[in-house]
């Protein structure tokens, strides 16, 4: 299933595949065990332009279109899920929000640094008591002279442990605003979250904001419009990135499943010759093709700036995440007992795939949105037949 790109973008994606195989994949297990995503790898990603892949070249980015970006994410995901997650939070959630909602001065100040990887970003929406109910966040801001004072606690903030810049949502009464907060601002601290099923090299932390004072220039978008425009824009881009991450992870699991099925012998023959194993392979192939097709379609719609691109992205994310998890589970099944050990990557794929069904909106939240779309668009002309 080959998706055509122009020569420059094809080269970027192909080189990302090489980078994933030669640099990311060999260290993925080690990174997970140490809980550290190495700075020198982030630097290499920055030098290659991946950290600003979708940003305009005028702002230091590679200017990839949505389809090319998706293929890049899938390649990176195959190497190391942590690297892919960095692209999602740093670029898709934060940099894209700055690009779409930021002032000229914010864009000029931050995007080139973000694209080079000199500034690493994290996105602070979720709180201990507010996950799916994101609009109910309690982190609060109040006026402090001509500035703002922010207090609150964010949770599950991917890469916040090493981030230089945090995009944080906070409320004042009914109004929710988005703030760009530099990590070194007095009152900002982080506490690493331990015992995680996956994302162990993603520097996931709680972010504590204790009397943090920031100026008006730190507001991203208009005051009071943080959830409606900034958070929704960020999450839409994040979902698109995660959708393609699912494609990459599903392909990685399929590759591992088939490779093992070819070589593992039982009853004197390769297990890939047994029909029940072949069923899992067949379903995995269909799943990868279908997930990739949905992501491709969403990407083309995003390229065309179609209004329905948002819901198409949601559909792609929901399907891709579920497919990645199912294929990764089957990959473990094909590996039998060996699937349980860290000698093979499939148990890690399974854990990482589960996360895709939760981050940037759980599958159940996606289903709520998709069902609403279904109720709006279907069954209007064929009722009572």
């Amino acid at each position, binding site marked *: 299933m080959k998706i055509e790109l122009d020569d420059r973008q094809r080269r970027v994606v192909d080189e990302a595949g090489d980078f994933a195989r030669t640099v990311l994949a060999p260290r993925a297990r080690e990174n997970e065990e140490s809980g550290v995503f190495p700075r020198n790898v982030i630097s290499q990603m920055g030098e290659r332009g991946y950290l600003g892949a979708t940003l305009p070249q005028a702002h230091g980015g590679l200017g990839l279109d949505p389809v090319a970006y998706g293929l890049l994410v899938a390649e990176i995901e195959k190497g190391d899920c942590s690297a892919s997650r960095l692209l999602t939070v740093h670029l898709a959630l934060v940099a894209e929000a700055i690009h779409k909602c930021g002032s000229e001065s914010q864009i000029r100040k931050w995007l080139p640094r973000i694209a080079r990887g000199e500034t690493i970003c994290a996105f602070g929406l979720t709180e201990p008591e507010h996950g799916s109910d994101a609009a109910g966040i309690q982190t609060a801001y109040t006026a402090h002279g001509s500035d703002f004072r922010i207090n609150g606690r964010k949770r599950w903030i991917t890469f916040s442990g090493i981030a230089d810049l945090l995009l944080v949502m906070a409320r004042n009464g009914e109004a929710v605003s988005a703030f760009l907060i530099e990590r070194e601002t007095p009152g900002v601290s982080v506490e690493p979250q331990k015992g995680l099923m996956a994302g162990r090299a993603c520097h996931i932390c709680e972010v504590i904001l204790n009397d943090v004072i920031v100026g008006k220039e730190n507001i991203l978008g208009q005051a009071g419009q943080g959830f409606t425009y900034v958070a929704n824009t960020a999450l839409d881009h994040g979902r698109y990135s995660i959708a393609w991450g699912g494609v990459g992870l599903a392909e990685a699991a399929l590759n591992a499943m088939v490779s093992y099925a070819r070589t593992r012998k039982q009853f004197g023959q390769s297990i890939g010759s047994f029909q029940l194993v072949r069923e899992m392979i067949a379903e995995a192939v269909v799943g990868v093709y279908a997930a990739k097709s949905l992501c491709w379609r969403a990407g083309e719609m995003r390229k065309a700036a179609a*209004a329905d691109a948002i819901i198409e992205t949601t559909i792609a994310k929901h399907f891709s995440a579920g497919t990645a998890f199912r294929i990764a589970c089957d990959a473990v099944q094909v590996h039998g007992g060996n699937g349980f050990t860290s000698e093979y990557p499939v148990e890690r794929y399974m854990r990482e795939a589960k996360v895709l069904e939760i981050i940037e909106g759980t599958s159940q939240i996606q289903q709520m949105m998709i069902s609403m779309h279904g109720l*709006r668009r279907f069954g209007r002309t064929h009722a009572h037949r």
Partner: protein
Amino acid sequence: MREKIRAMVESNLNIFNSGVQFSDDDNIFRKGFVDSLFAVQLIAYLEAEFGIKVANKDLDINNFHSVNKMVSFVERKRQEGTGGASR
């Protein structure tokens, strides 16, 4: 323009009771006729359909909460010459 915008809003309403009507002055967000994600979808639609550019300073729900507000916004942007300011 008004008919196109109204049709787009109607096709995205989160209400299924055919007896429910909305006027061009209704605040569709406050009344729960659409969700907040529609605000982002709407920007993409207005830009693509009417060839305007929605600037950072325009990203205020008060510009878009009713059909009449949307129509006024597009007319203003067209008079300004596509809104000019980049996002």
